């Protein structure tokens, strides 16, 4: 219920926001969706993936290449982006999921960097570091408000899907595997297939975020695949509080806003961002959401529900 309230509020806020506010809000929602996709793997299945940029980039490049080279209409490339990034996740997941802990994290990083190098070097096909530009969606979706509603719709559908998934047998199976893999397998839950499906879903949603970001930015570059993009998903999730359902989305918008706000003020924005992250880790491990809930003292019932109890 709280979710619907929030989405409705965001929808109503649309027309009142300035052009720049719409662009910022769209990007915040896109990065929020991207962080939520990461948290599906991280919180539900306990997998710390450092390669989400691979799927974010695949989704963006699928859209860019199909619209630029194959003249596909913009929205027609949406299913293609989801498919390509999900397929990428299937292949990378197939190899990575067998590994555990830091080795899984490192292999996903290696795969993402391999894709970055390929996008960077395959100049003829991807345009290399010149990237692919002029990706403004034609017609209505090229305007800020309609595009904001497209992003909000995508965000809403993804978040509702993730909320449903969390309460579904599949969501419980993932958490069972995370809590105790041996016990989960002993009750008939096949760890490889469940984790791989979670990896593919997370990959597809990250691809969706990449698709939207490419359209918002009007261009796609190898940077979409670089490891700092994967780090962004992790930072947003922890900043927002990975223990809370909407934590990553809160973290993503806070992370984006802080970068924009602090960067507008000083050339040494990384320093201030670093200090803030340091404070968060040391004093507010439960993230901004944990902090906010602590401050506002919501009735415990809501808090229990918020943490996907």
């Amino acid at each position, binding site marked *: 219920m709280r979710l619907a309230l929030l989405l409705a509020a965001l929808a109503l806020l649309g027309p009142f926001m300035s052009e720049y506010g719409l662009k910022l809000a769209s990007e915040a929602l896109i990065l929020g969706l991207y962080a939520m996709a990461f948290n599906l793997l*991280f919180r539900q299945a306990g997998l*710390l993936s450092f390669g989400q940029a691979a799927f974010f980039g695949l989704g963006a490049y699928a859209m860019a290449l199909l619209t630029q080279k194959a003249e596909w209409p913009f929205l027609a490339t949406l299913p293609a982006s989801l498919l390509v990034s999900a397929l990428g996740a299937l292949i990378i997941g197939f*190899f990575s999921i*067998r*590994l*555990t*802990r*830091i*080795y899984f*994290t*490192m*292999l996903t*990083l*290696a*795969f993402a*960097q*391999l894709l970055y*190098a*390929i996008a*960077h*070097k395959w100049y003829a096909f991807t345009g290399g570091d010149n990237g692919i530009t002029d990706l403004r969606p034609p017609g209505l979706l090229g305007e800020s408000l309609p595009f904001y509603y497209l992003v909000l719709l995508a965000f809403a559908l993804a978040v509702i899907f993730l909320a449903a998934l969390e309460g579904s047998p599949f969501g419980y199976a993932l958490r069972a595997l995370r809590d105790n*893999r*041996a016990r989960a397998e002993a009750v008939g839950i096949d760890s490889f297939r469940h984790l791989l499906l979670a990896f593919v879903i997370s990959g597809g949603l990250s691809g969706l975020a990449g698709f939207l970001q490419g359209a918002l930015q009007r261009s796609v570059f190898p940077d979409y695949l670089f*490891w*700092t993009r994967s*780090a962004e998903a*992790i*930072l947003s*999730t*922890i*900043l927002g509080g*990975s223990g809370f359902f909407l934590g990553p989305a809160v973290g993503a918008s806070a992370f984006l806003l802080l970068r924009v706000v602090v960067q507008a003020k000083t050339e*040494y924005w*990384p*320093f201030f*961002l*670093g*200090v*803030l*992250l*340091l404070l*968060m*880790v*040391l004093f507010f*491990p439960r993230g901004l959401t944990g902090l906010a809930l602590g401050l506002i003292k919501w009735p415990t019932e809501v808090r229990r529900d918020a943490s996907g109890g």
Partner: protein
Amino acid sequence: MDIGFYLLQLLTGLAYASTLFLLSVGLSLIFGAMGIVNFAHGSFYMLGAYLFYAFTRGQVEGFWGGLLSVLASGLVIGALVERLLIRPIYARPEEHQILLTYALLLILEDAVRFFFGAAYRSFPMPEAFSSPLFILGSPFPSYYLFLIGLAALFALLLWGFLYRTRLGVWIRAATQDREMLEALGVNVPLLYTAVFGLGIALAALGGAALLPLQAATPGMAVDAVISAFIVVVIGGLGSVWGALLGAVLIGLLQAFGILLLPEWAMVFPFGLMALVLLLRPWGLLGRPPAVRT
């Protein structure tokens, strides 16, 4: 078939390997002993380069003194960082360590740019190494031989330290069983401070030792940490010999790879890392994680 050239290429490969080893051995030591994933490792490598420049003020006479002072200050800085920032989050899950060290990366990059400015800082070549050695007729810089020697020396010193001293035994034991160590009355927190300090000192020394051949740039930390991770993952997280093997493999891969496939120099390290992770995830010389019954 000119043997001379291939020998030369081998030496350049080993030279690059020695720079990679000096950069990454500290990371492997810290992860091995403490299980800490230190994303700021490259920043301490950068800090070492800039501190070396500051201590010697770019004067070539300060070379040897500069190296020692960087090693010492690296130890102190490492110990302080461990004591103040890393200790509170031992019990915390992995991603908190990643976030904290990433925050350190951001802070250090800007601190260096604030104090040293954005220009590239380099250091003149000490005369002892200014004339190249001639190997089968082609010149090979003596400073590279110094680096290869330094890397080999450190590999031996670390090996001796880890396998032949009581402190070393404790450090290796810390990887397997921290509780057992505490049971034996070892002051583990102090041990961790020492290990982290040593790891950072090695990184700082690596940065300093490379300055005569390279240049300190404000953005070098991000690139260095990726190279360090690749070396350590290939060699095996936590194994000092693994870091050496990983460094040598990448060094030789670049030295000879560019003869066959000059186009693909950029992809070699990641390709090798992915291959190793697929075939032997815990690295060539790493130990498989304790199999959970």
